[in-house]
């Protein structure tokens, strides 16, 4: 039964990846190209030779991007379906599609929005190659912390809901998540490797596109998964009498 949910999640995740590819190609790629142009100019000014292309830009921005976001979509779809399996019937009186949407919104905030506030996405030419190991470690630490604290706050909110209203318990859970993540952000070191002369506008649009891709993936997962749960409910998703 849960296996079916997992398969559904991964298939919907592939769909989410396809839509995310379209979004990324239209709104993200122009800024990747811009950043690569900037990098080329900086290298030329320093008298550095152009880097040899192992994979052409044409492949990177199409098949490479498509492969990456579809694999990511399927992986996140799998994670989503497991979170949904835990949440189903455990979030007050929420229906199956309602649960899907709430879980998707929570995942978007937990996996994308909050980690990216601390460690935003960076286009090519930003980031010192010597610090890649440390930056990757910090990014995944932030991601893991966000997920663990979100799970903890959800469990606490559920236990509070025994004595308080669902509304108050939910707000208290969200408030606790915000406070704990604020502390985590202050505790982790800040990374700022934006080179001089990099257009602030390009950086803003690139980072917004990155958050937009996350919104497309999690939005598709919540809506499409919820629609399937409503239209073709599995035995676990039908309302008990």
């Amino acid at each position, binding site marked *: *039964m*849960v296996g079916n*949910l*997992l398969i559904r999640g991964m298939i919907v995740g592939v769909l989410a990846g396809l839509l995310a590819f379209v979004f*990324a190609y239209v709104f*993200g790629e122009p800024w*990747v190209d811009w950043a690569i142009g900037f990098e080329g100019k900086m290298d030329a000014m320093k008298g550095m030779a152009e880097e040899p292309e*192992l*994979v052409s830009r044409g*492949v*990177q*921005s199409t*098949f*490479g*991007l498509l*492969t*990456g976001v579809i*694999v*990511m979509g399927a*992986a996140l779809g*799998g994670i989503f379906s*497991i979170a949904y*399996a*835990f949440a*189903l*019937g*455990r979030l*007050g*009186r*929420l*229906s*199956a599609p309602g*649960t899907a949407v709430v879980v998707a919104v929570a995942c978007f905030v937990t996996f*994308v929005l909050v980690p*990216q506030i601390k*460690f*935003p*996405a*960076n*286009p*090519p030419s930003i*980031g010192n*190659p010597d610090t*890649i*190991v440390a*930056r*990757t*470690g910090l*990014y*995944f630490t932030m991601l893991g912390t966000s997920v663990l604290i979100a799970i903890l706050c959800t469990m606490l909110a*559920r*236990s509070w809901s*025994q004595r308080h209203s669902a509304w108050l318990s939910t707000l208290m859970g969200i408030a606790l998540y915000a406070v704990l993540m604020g502390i985590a952000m202050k505790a982790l070191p800040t990374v700022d490797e934006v080179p001089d002369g990099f257009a602030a506008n390009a950086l803003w649009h*690139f980072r917004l596109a*990155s958050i937009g891709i996350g919104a497309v993936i999690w939005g598709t997962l919540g809506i499409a998964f919820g629609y399937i749960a409503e239209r073709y409910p599995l035995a*676990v*998703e*039908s*309302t*008990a009498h």
Partner: protein
Amino acid sequence: MSTTSLTPKLNSGSVQAIPLGAIAPWAIFGLLLAIVGIYFVGAEQGATALFKGMYVHEFVHDARHLLGFPCH
């Protein structure tokens, strides 16, 4: 997550919760699968490498940047 906090009040007339024991094995399997996928898109041939060269990194290069992973 403890099952003891499940009250009949929360469940009456709504969807039944799936027992945690039924979710656990699929949760482990699904998470392992997801971690492998996320690793190859997000970190292989960047901070760490299972395969030599830079082909995986360069192929998923744009996705890695746009999905918000540190790339290089």
